């Protein structure tokens, strides 16, 4: 089964993959918003989504490490990785202490900050072009990019909020 969805919040995406697994659909592959699922036992797998370190570009070493400890790297999309483990093998959570949870949210925050920066420049360019030419297509693009900017801003804000929350727990 294939499903098309656009997620930019990995927590919501993870919850969705988890729900699909509960319903007997195991996530298998991701490409440009298309999620491929194959039938599985209801609740057979626990899914986790992670963002790899910018410096640590070698996905091979990450995958080898995870496989050595019994975690399957199901799919990869740029720096994003989808991991899973059989639910029978016990609980599965990628990050178990506050420091590493903060690190993860920091990585995600910086990832979206750099895209927010690029998108903001695009927005300004499109916006000024739209004003100049009064072309409706350009206005449409401006609105679209504006929406993307807002979505990224929301994620950056959410990550900052989570980091602050975790720091208070320390």
């Amino acid at each position, binding site marked *: 089964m294939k499903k098309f969805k656009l997620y930019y919040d990995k927590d919501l995406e993870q919850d969705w993959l988890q729900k699909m697994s509960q319903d007997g659909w195991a996530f298998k592959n991701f490409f440009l918003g298309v999620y491929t699922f194959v039938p599985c036992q209801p609740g057979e797998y626990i899914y*986790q989504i*992670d963002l790899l*370190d910018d410096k*640590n570009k070698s996905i091979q070493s*990450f995958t*080898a*490490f*995870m496989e*050595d*400890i*019994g*975690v399957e790297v199901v799919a990869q999309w740029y720096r994003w990785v989808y*991991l899973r483990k059989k639910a029978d093998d016990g*609980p599965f*959570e*990628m*990050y*178990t*202490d506050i*420091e*590493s949870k903060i*690190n*993860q949210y920091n990585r995600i925050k910086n990832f979206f900050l750099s895209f927010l920066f690029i998108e903001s420049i695009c927005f300004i360019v499109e916006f000024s072009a739209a004003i100049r030419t009064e072309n409706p297509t350009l206005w449409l693009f401006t609105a679209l990019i504006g929406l993307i900017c807002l979505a990224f801003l929301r994620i950056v804000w959410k990550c900052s909020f989570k980091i602050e929350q975790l720091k208070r727990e320390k």
Partner: protein
Amino acid sequence: MCYNSPLTEALFYILLAVRKPNHGYGIIQEVSDITNGRLVLGPGTLYGAINSLLSKKWITLYSEDKSSRKKKEYLITTDGKDVFYKEVDRLRELIENAKLMEDLV
């Protein structure tokens, strides 16, 4: 090497688990065993910690057998041991000072 802040619990136990050559799964297993299942290291937490310990040279890659796809093993270095014992001294001081609480009663 200069390290004055307390080690996190994860780093402390990872250093302990690589006093002899040990691989990722072995580290998770041993830490869980000696803490009676209280501390189960998440794969991402362990991966990040190992990379940070490697870059600080507190642990080193002990073996990597590419032909048989044997798991990577890690081993503590002299620097790592220094940091570990410094932390143990700090913890001893805590335990020692904790006795003051009992003296009061």
